[in-house]
């Protein structure tokens, strides 16, 4: 081994405390990068393989009833390569001992069991035999409910019951994320899809020789929007409800949103860590170069070139970064696998393998090295530029100035120690600012860690306390006259009953459109009302609708303008709706208007789609059973169950996120404060020892050094709060804005938590350095160097 390499290893060992803290910051960044990226890559791969092998369609459309003969005309649309016509019908299902029966879809399966598009993946059992009353069921539901093959399942369609025997469980590319229409969270227990042979289903639904749903595969390079337009035109006379592409296919839409969020986080979060690592390397290496000034001169004097000496210091940085990378990759692989398993609970693929690609590992190492080199660049340039003859001489005394406080004349009463502290801080404003920024970043990361919990609490408060305030939600099988609500109000145990009209529409402005929901509120309604993100109930306008702000942006319209709406139920008529104003909705895209305004717009008597009930007792089982038995009722759901489910689903991920973010933030805080303190100590050892020699106590010199750190930490807190807010906003922005918008609430406790953890990290670092300060060897320090 070359002598220079031995120097490198021994320098590394000497710097172990600092090297370790830096390596840990790198490890955190690389860990998150590798974790998120590998999960992103794995999910993307699982999805692509799934979609390709199971021939996931490109375009989907729903129609009231179209003759099968139309198929050949659809096939003739330029760009279409394959057409799969089928039957789809909403249904509810009866399952023994389940008070809230599942809802979902009845779907047709070609009699030979092999759909040309959107093929099914058989998980257990066998395909149904046509004519035997057999069917397949979505595996997620079967597993959650412990459904046994051969068991009968009763489906209720338009009040008629029909029994199927389950022969197998399946996965479908259309239900990677199995979620019912209009739901905000998936519920494997309550959402199911049943696939039965088409001939039987057609007879049951009275759709023999017709179809009401289709999936289309496109040729490569097909003009998608043209195909959609052609398809809409062909289907319109048969009650076409608008064709849509993969991006709007519900399951794929959620999957896309999740992948986008992963991809964004996988880039943004590691950048914070690597920036901190680069900054720390800069601090530590600059100090090392300062201390090794005469060694650098000696190396150059004996004939080492600038390049060799510069590389030597870069190698030292590389060792620290590589140690961090290795730790980070190991951690990232573990973290990625855990995260992947978590995703596996929500997203169902036939083949779901976690893989960590070699290429990703190489990228991680490359990225961390690049950050390291970037951080070290300034110090290494100083090494290269240091003329050997100058390096032989002691460095010129640093130029100090009176600090701004002194120039303002408010220093008459401050101690010389305080003056030293402020001069040191103001002498290198850039270094001080970067230190403050570094600590502030850790404050920010801490806020992010807890913000997740705040976000969920805020959203839950908004959704479940302010917006949806009923105890039971009754969904009617179709719109009902208002007297249905009065009937509900007369049931025993019901305190208050209100109705809500919900109309699915396609809102359109020129070529831009979205499928959204219009809500019609009762005038004296208390259980549901439009509420802004900040929780303030809004008054509905006399004319027109309040429309989700985000939807206005998508459609590029402003309040006062009109949009075209196409009803997605009943008459499928086209209407014009006035936009009265924007509203910041928490979930989904919607328009909110008065029930009478809505009825007028639709040209109908006031109708209701949902019944909202408050009840006298917490025990609602009997009432639920009673409601469920009513033929006009499609489903009943209890508010408490929804809250429970929401809490259960978010609790685990919140716990994990908070834990990781806290560990990461501590790593950064300790890394920044400890390294700053160590560097300050070694650069000022002589000054401090001199002060001891002239009679200052240990406490007094500690106050000078630690005072500097203390001021930096204090300055960092407000900056960190601001950064935390900005990062929180950034993270919220990675959530699909068409699904959720979050109230930006950061609780006081979160700020306090971030401040306390940062102060604790600062204190711990201060104490570590204080120990060294107490052991300062006065004579040795004064003797070394010139």
């Amino acid at each position, binding site marked *: 081994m070359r002598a220079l390499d031995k120097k490198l290893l021994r320098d590394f060992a000497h710097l172990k405390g600092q090297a370790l803290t830096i390596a840990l910051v790198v490890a955190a960044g690389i860990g998150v990068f590798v974790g998120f990226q590998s999960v992103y890559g794995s999910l993307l791969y699982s999805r692509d393989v799934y979609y390709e092998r199971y021939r996931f369609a490109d375009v989907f459309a729903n129609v009231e009833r179209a003759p099968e003969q139309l198929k050949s005309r659809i096939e003739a649309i330029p760009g279409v390569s394959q057409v799969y016509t089928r039957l789809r019908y909403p249904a509810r299902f009866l399952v023994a001992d389940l008070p809230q029966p599942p809802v979902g879809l009845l779907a047709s399966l070609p009699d030979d069991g092999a759909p040309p598009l959107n093929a099914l993946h058989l998980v257990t059992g066998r395909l149904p035999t046509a004519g035997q009353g057999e069917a397949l069921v979505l595996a997620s539901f079967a597993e959650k409910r412990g459904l046994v093959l051969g068991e009968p399942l009763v489906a209720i369609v338009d009040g008629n019951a029909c029994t199927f025997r389950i022969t197998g469980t399946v996965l479908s590319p259309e239900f990677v994320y199995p979620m019912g229409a209009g739901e905000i969270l998936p519920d494997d227990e309550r959402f199911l899809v049943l696939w039965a042979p088409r001939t039987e289903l057609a007879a049951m639904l009275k759709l023999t020789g017709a179809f009401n749903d289709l999936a289309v595969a496109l040729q490569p390079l097909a003009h998608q929007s043209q195909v959609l337009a052609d398809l809409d035109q062909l289907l319109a006379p048969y009650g076409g409800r608008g064709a849509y592409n993969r991006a709007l296919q519900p399951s794929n839409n959620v999957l896309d949103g999740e992948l986008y969020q992963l991809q964004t986080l996988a880039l943004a979060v590691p950048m914070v860590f690597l920036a901190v690592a680069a900054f720390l390397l800069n601090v530590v290496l600059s100090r090392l170069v300062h201390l090794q000034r005469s060694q650098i001169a000696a190396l150059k004097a*004996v004939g080492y070139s600038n390049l060799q000496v510069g590389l030597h210091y870069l190698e030292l940085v590389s060792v620290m970064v590589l140690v961090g990378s290795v730790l980070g990759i190991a951690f990232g692989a573990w973290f990625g696998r855990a995260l992947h398993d978590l995703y596996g609970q929500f997203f169902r693929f036939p083949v779901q393998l976690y893989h960590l690609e070699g290429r990703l590992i190489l990228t991680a190492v490359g990225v961390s090295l690049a950050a390291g080199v970037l951080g070290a660049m300034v110090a290494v340039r100083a090494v290269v530029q240091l003329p050997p*003859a100058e390096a032989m001489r002691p460095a010129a005394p640093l130029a100090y100035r009176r600090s701004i406080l002194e120039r303002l004349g408010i220093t008459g009463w401050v101690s010389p120690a305080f003056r030293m502290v402020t001069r040191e801080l103001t002498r290198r404003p850039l270094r001080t600012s970067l230190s403050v920024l570094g600590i502030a970043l850790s404050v920010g990361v801490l806020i992010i860690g807890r913000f997740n919990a705040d976000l969920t609490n805020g959203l839950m408060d908004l959704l479940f306390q302010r917006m949806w305030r009923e105890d039971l939600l009754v969904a009617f099988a179709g719109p009902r006259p208002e007297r249905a609500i009065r009937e509900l109000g007369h049931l025993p145990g019901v305190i208050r009953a209100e109705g809500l009209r919900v109309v699915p529409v396609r809102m359109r402005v020129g070529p831009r459109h979205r499928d959204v929901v219009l809500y019609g509120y009762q005038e004296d309604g208390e259980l549901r009302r439009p509420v802004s993100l900040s929780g303030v109930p809004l008054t509905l306008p006399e004319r027109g609708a309040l429309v989700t702000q985000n939807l206005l942006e998508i459609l590029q319209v402003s309040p006062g303008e009109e949009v075209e709406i196409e009803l997605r139920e009943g008459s499928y008529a086209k209407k014009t709706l006035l936009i009265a104003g924007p509203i910041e909705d928490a979930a989904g895209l919607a328009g909110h208007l008065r029930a009478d305004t809505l009825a007028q717009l639709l040209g109908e008597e006031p109708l209701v789609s949902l019944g909202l009930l408050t009840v006298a007792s917490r025990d609602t089982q009997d009432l639920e059973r009673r409601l469920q038995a009513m033929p006009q009722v499609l489903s009943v759901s209890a508010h408490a169950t929804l809250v429970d489910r929401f809490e259960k689903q978010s609790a685990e991920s919140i716990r994990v996120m908070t834990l990781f973010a806290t560990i990461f933030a501590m790593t950064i805080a300790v890394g920044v404060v400890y390294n700053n303190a160590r560097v300050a100590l070694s650069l000022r050892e002589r000054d401090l020892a001199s002060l001891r020699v002239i009679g200052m106590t240990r406490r007094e010199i500690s106050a000078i050094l630690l005072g500097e750190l203390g001021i930096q930490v204090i300055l960092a807190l407000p900056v960190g709060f601001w950064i935390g807010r900005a990062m929180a906003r950034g993270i919220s922005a990675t959530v699909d804005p068409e699904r959720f918008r979050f109230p930006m609430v950061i609780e006081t406790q979160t700020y306090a938590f971030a401040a306390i953890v940062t102060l604790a990290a600062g204190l711990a670092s201060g104490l570590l350095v204080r120990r060294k300060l107490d052991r300062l060897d006065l004579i040795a320090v004064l003797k070394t160097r010139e």
Partner: protein
Amino acid sequence: MAEVVLAGRELTKLYRMGEVEVLALRGVDLELREGELVVLLGASGSGKSTLLNILGGLDRASSGRVQYRDQDLSDADEDELTLYRRRHVGFVFQFYNLIPSLTAKENVALVTDIVDDPLDPAEALSLVGLGQRLDHFPSQMSGGEQQRVAIARAIAKRPDLLLCDEPTGALDFQTGVLVLEVLERVNRELGTSTAVITHNLPIAAMADRVVTLADGRVQGEVVHTQRAKAADIRW
């Protein structure tokens, strides 16, 4: 007369130190001949270290010329100066400038790693009487021993020039003499042209030639027909 190995002509040097400008050399001429031992004498601030740094390729003159054998170093770039130092010059500094994290042998190996046909580090250390202390770190050695490691490091490359800046400046009398004996031996046995900077007048007695500097100029030159033995020097 022996061949001129290194020559400086009309050398001046102006440099900044902090906020102060210093004119360290004001037109100096100096030659160093094959196998010669020259002592540069002068008070602190007389410009002797600056001159040595320029001759050794550690620094550039503000004006004037430096010639090593038939190579003109006046306009040499950084790489050429590095090669010149690597191949031809051995330095010994007042504060040794050893790498504290490397043992005696490793400090010497720093040089033998990068030159052709060097001495074995152990052999170089034996030459300076440290054959028994190869694996000691600088912090485990006395000042005299550290300086001898520095000399071993300088001679391990078999340099043509040995440039020593106050080699005994940080040492007590007895250790200082020991170091001078090593320099004398290297000059005699290896025939290395040697320049020694000192402000310590008695050391001048061991030189072939003594050049006195004052205020950035050569003040006088004395040629000795007979050199005193290092062991006999007292101060």
